[in-house]
């Protein structure tokens, strides 16, 4: 009796979509950005039900007059002046025109060592590259997991 052989996960890769370098780079930088996040979850305060009529509502004014009054308080001035995120501050510094060394020039240059490769599923050293997305894998088992969970999509 002929036992039907399971299709090779590796060979069928030829028919799959292949991501270009730019997309792969974008995916990588999105992953790296995620590693900079303070929290993965939403602020627990924001998930509270909308405040009832008794709760103090934020005072958004529609008329001009109270707006002007508010501007004068120190707190408001403070917020306007000091509320900037990192990217805005970096831009404001205008470092390209400033003499080195500065924040940008102090960044360690790329390593001269060749990159090492690890299986993106189990983390052990890997020898193979997923033809579709460029992710690394170490064995067929990990390749299948990778296909199901991460390749061309990002579950989690």
């Amino acid at each position, binding site marked *: 009796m002929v036992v039907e052989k399971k299709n090779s996960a590796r060979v069928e890769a030829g028919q799959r979509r292949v991501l270009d370098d730019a997309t792969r780079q974008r995916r*990588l930088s999105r*992953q*790296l950005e*995620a*590693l*900079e*996040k*303070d*929290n*993965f*979850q939403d*602020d*627990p*305060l924001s*998930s*509270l039900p909308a405040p009832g009529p008794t709760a103090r509502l934020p005072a958004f004014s529609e008329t001009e007059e109270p707006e002007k009054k508010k501007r004068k308080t120190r707190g408001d001035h*403070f*917020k306007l*002046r*000091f*509320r*900037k*995120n*990192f990217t805005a*501050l*970096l831009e*404001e*510094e205008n470092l390209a025109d400033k003499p*080195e*060394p*500065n*924040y940008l020039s*102090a*960044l*360690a*240059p*790329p*390593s*001269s*060592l060749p*990159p*090492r490769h*690890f299986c993106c*599923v*189990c*983390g*052990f*050293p890997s020898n193979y590259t997923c033809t579709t997305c460029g992710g690394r894998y170490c064995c067929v088992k990990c390749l299948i997991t990778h296909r199901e*969970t*991460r390749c061309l999509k990002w579950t*989690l």
Partner: protein
Amino acid sequence: MATLVLDNGAYTAKIGYSSDQVSVIPNCQFRSKTSRMKTFTANQLDEIKDPSALFYILPFQKGYLVNWDVQRKVWDHLFGKEMFKVDFAESSIVISEPYFNFTSIQESMNEILFEEYRFQSALRINAGSLSARGYFRSEPYQLCCLLVDSGFSFTHIAPYCRGSRMKDGIRRINVGGKLLTNHLKEIISYRQLHVMDETHVINQVKEDVCFVSQDFYKDMAVAQLKGHDNTVMRDYVLPDFSAIKKGFCKPADQVVLSGKYKTGEQILRLANERFAVPEMLFHPSDIGIQEMGIPEAIVDSVQSLSEDMQPHMYGNIILTGGNVLFPGFRERLEAELRSLVPAHIPVKVTLPNNPITYAWEGGKLLANDPDYEEMVVTRDDYEENGHFVCEEKFDI
């Protein structure tokens, strides 16, 4: 007049009077899902009974102070009557800043210290300069030192010669404790249990089980073995915040190889994660960050200095910051440097016994220095000359 020393880190503030001891306090605010309306500030963290899914509100972004509202709330708490009871009119402050701090942040800092809090005098300085001061005090015969400061946001390599900072040699690697925790969180969530919301818990896991491998590929091979041969594998018992307040490693004799425990605690099984995570500090390219690792960056930094300085740098490497506490960090760094540096140059890497508060201790020495009064900017001075005088006097 009292002097307050504040090493204002992105994750913890190291604070204390120059006559006193240091306290390490979270420099952030928290929200917990059990008491959602309340925001907890700094060490009020201890009041949260169930810190699962703890939400962080941090004043720093990428190591630079941007969220002043949060920072002021934390400072109000630290300076206030619950903690340090600062009498601003009679107090001076030494406060640390990151290297290459942005001009606008420096100006905001001046304004807040002098105009909002009204400190009598202030001294703003790089945390590394404080550490270097501490080192030269304890080793008066050394001419140079090279600081490796690996903190929450990033890692800096900073050479100092006779007390002055060699600005051209400063290197930054964008790998810090936050990235390591987030990476560990990510791989655990992908491989076994969804813990993406549990930054606080996983940070504790990282501190408890991670280590720096001395022979990376050998440990990788060991971590792949099955059964008792796998000496790297650990079972970590997660806290449930009722019976188990704090996570811990299962003692070796209680480990069940199948991973099925009858007691029903939640277990994380960690093998290559234990050393692959701190490995990012040595090889950021492992996760696609195209930067040198610490040993390579040290060599790059030292080579940018004049040649007669170089041997003194390699002989006086000091580790500061929380990440250097990973077991094996010092040994690995020394071994890697030994193979990168010419054989006739001695390499010595020192791990102080208090790497987190090392800069603070340097700040304490500075505050008790007879020349301290000449280094500060007083409020009168600031009111007369504004930011200009701060820019002149402070070496940031």
